């Protein structure tokens, strides 16, 4: 029995279809994130789940009970909603607003009992607003007001908590504060939340539901849903997807390709390996360069990146050195390249040829790229690789740090200077 199950629902506003054939469920105690571009129907989906918006067809089941069979008060005891931000017309005290969460439990002729007061106190404590209880809802900050709304939702003692971008209007420290509170609540409560910020969604959610054009595009763990391909497809944006250094969850770094046309009609060859080239492959791709790379081992991270981006890459099977065939392919690439980039990759006997062959191209612009951390090449060849680099530098190869400088150092194929 699932706490909430959405079965093939359609929703429209008038003649306009907003959601089509949506089916998913939430598991007990998990945080399920709903993500998707603007206009994909995220908020409407949440409103259908709280029955604020009527659906055309399909079924929503709460603990196997049809949502439509529940009365207003019964529904409010099962499902609580934390809205994005609300304007509260009259000047209520924080405690009064939280007590409104008890409304579905208090009869028309009754007034709140000691138990209701205790539940509100506990809710305010959990949402960290107990110290604000006596203050006016108008005199507290946006982050505090959002926590008051969480306390109010908790006072409803719901089984399911729905959040509609509940932190979108707040600065990042308040977002994290509030989501930490939500994370602690999950387990006891099932949480379904619309997220605008993919990185927050990736960290806080157990599973994600990705919407595109009114339909479910993907569901699964953040790792399964927040892939490079999905982000490019859904958001039409080049982005790097990397594990967060501390949490290991996917972290999305947009490639800020504001110079998206500088590489038009220009060829660049990248000599890389060991993952040192992945970021700039994305960058060069986003800047419209025609990129080749290699020679790489097919197990190399950079090879995977090149394949994902559809770049042409010279590759060798695992545990092979560079064969004469690959080397001649490399020379063809280097011949036609307008510039050559060498990353701070680990160099051993197996890939030393990649460097040495560059000595045959004294006329080509060569950029030695060391990334933002200014890392040095790891030389496992007993100094031979270093010697090649020194020679290249003496012939005019430039050391470059950082992506923006790299783009600036490359021959420009298109100038969009205004």
């Amino acid at each position, binding site marked *: 029995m699932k706490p909430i199950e959405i079965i093939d629902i359609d929703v429209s506003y008038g003649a306009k279809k907003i959601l089509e054939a949506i089916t998913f469920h939430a598991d007990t105690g998990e945080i399920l994130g709903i993500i998707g571009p603007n206009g994909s129907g995220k908020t409407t989906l949440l409103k259908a789940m709280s029955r604020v918006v009527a659906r055309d067809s399909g079924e929503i089941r709460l603990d196997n009970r049809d949502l439509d069979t529940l009365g*207003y008060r019964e529904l409010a005891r099962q499902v609580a909603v934390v*809205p994005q931000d609300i304007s509260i*017309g009259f*000047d209520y*005290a924080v405690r*009064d607003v939280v007590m*409104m969460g008890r*409304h579905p439990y208090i009869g028309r*002729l009754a007034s709140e009992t000691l138990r209701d007061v205790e539940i509100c106190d506990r809710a305010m404590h959990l949402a960290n607003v107990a110290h604000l209880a006596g203050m006016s809802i108008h005199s507290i900050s946006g982050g505090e007001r959002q926590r008051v709304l969480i306390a109010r939702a908790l006072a409803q003692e719901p089984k399911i908590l729905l959040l509609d971008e509940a932190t979108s209007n707040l600065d990042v420290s308040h977002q994290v504060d509030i989501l930490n509170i939500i994370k602690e609540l999950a387990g006891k409560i099932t949480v379904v939340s619309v997220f605008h910020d993919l990185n927050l969604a990736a960290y806080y959610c157990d599973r994600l539901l990705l919407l595109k054009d009114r339909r479910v595009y993907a569901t699964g763990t953040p790792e399964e849903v927040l892939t490079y391909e999905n982000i490019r497809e859904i958001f039409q944006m080049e982005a790097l997807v990397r594990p967060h250094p501390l949490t290991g969850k996917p972290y999305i770094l947009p490639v800020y390709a504001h110079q998206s046309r500088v590489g038009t009609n220009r060829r660049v060859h990248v000599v890389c390996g060991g993952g040192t080239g992945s970021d700039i492959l994305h960058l060069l791709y986003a800047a419209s360069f025609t990129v080749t790379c290699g020679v790489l081992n097919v197990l190399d991270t950079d090879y995977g990146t090149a394949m994902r981006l559809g770049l042409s890459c010279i590759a060798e099977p695992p545990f092979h050195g560079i064969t004469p065939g690959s080397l001649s392919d490399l020379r063809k690439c280097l011949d036609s390249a307008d510039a050559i980039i060498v990353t701070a990759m680990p160099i051993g006997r197996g890939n030393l040829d990649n460097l040495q062959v560059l000595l045959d191209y004294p006329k080509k612009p060569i950029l030695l790229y060391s990334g933002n951390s200014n890392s040095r090449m790891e030389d496992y060849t007993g100094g031979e690789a270093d010697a090649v680099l020194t020679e290249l530098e003496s012939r005019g190869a430039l050391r470059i740090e950082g992506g923006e400088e790299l783009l600036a150092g490359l021959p420009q194929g298109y100038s969009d200077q205004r």
Partner: protein
Amino acid sequence: MRRTAPITILTLTCLLLISMACAVALGPTGISLESLFSSENTWKIVWDIRLPRVIAAALVGCALAVAGTAMQGLFRNPMADPYIIGTSSGGALGATIAIVLFAGTGRPVLAFIGAMAATFIVYFIARSGSKIPVETLLLSGVALSTLLSALLSFLMYTAGRSLHQIMFWLMGGFWNVSWNDVFVALPILLGCVGIYLFARDVNILSLSEEDATHLGVNVERLKQILLALSAFVAGIAVAVAGSIGFVGLITPHVMRLIVGPDHRFLFPAAALAGAILLIWSDTLTRTFTNDMPVGIITACFGAPFFIYLLRSRMKT
């Protein structure tokens, strides 16, 4: 809830009783306590003229203030008043029809029917599907009031000799109020109690309609109930005393400043304050101004006070 709210309500209750006593004692004819028991005439003035008039004023004041509070909560707009949904213009048209066509017989009945009918028409104009958006409700109230006012003007234009009577009625007042009118006005209390039962719902509705739904309030049903009960009490008020302005607008305002926005305290406080306000306005007019229509008094004091409130709101 502000801790002072129950004390305020207690104080207002005492003030109401004192006001009623004073209002009975005051008037163009001086009355002393001993003459009350010695002179039959004095007894008649107090029992048959002043007391029903004071009680009617209290009930009408209570009705207007409670309906005003309910409308301000429903529309989430402090500028709303009990007449916003066409009650007064409908009532005025009904009363005028009675005066012009039936020489005044059945005036309260027609006024009440007019007030209720106007509210229902506004409601059905504004309704789309199962919902009544408050903005549409507001606008259809304004539109219908304009139409009814035009019909009213036409009737006044053709009224001839009864024009004076219509004018007096439109400005509102408590002449010739008898015990009969008091009995007619008594259901106001029932309506007010009915509205009070939804005080907590109105509190929640003042957040937003969607949010109120999340908290288990059947918003559309609540709107229907509030509209019907408000039209009912305001319609009776209009039938008894004509359209008296500003009581329903100002009283909720002032009481919200004093007891806070919690309608469980705001409704009773406004009811008491509305009653007190109208008792004193009526006492003032019959004692000092030769029974000028009380609507003039409430407007004279109400409008400047309203402007003062508006200005002080803008400063904060």
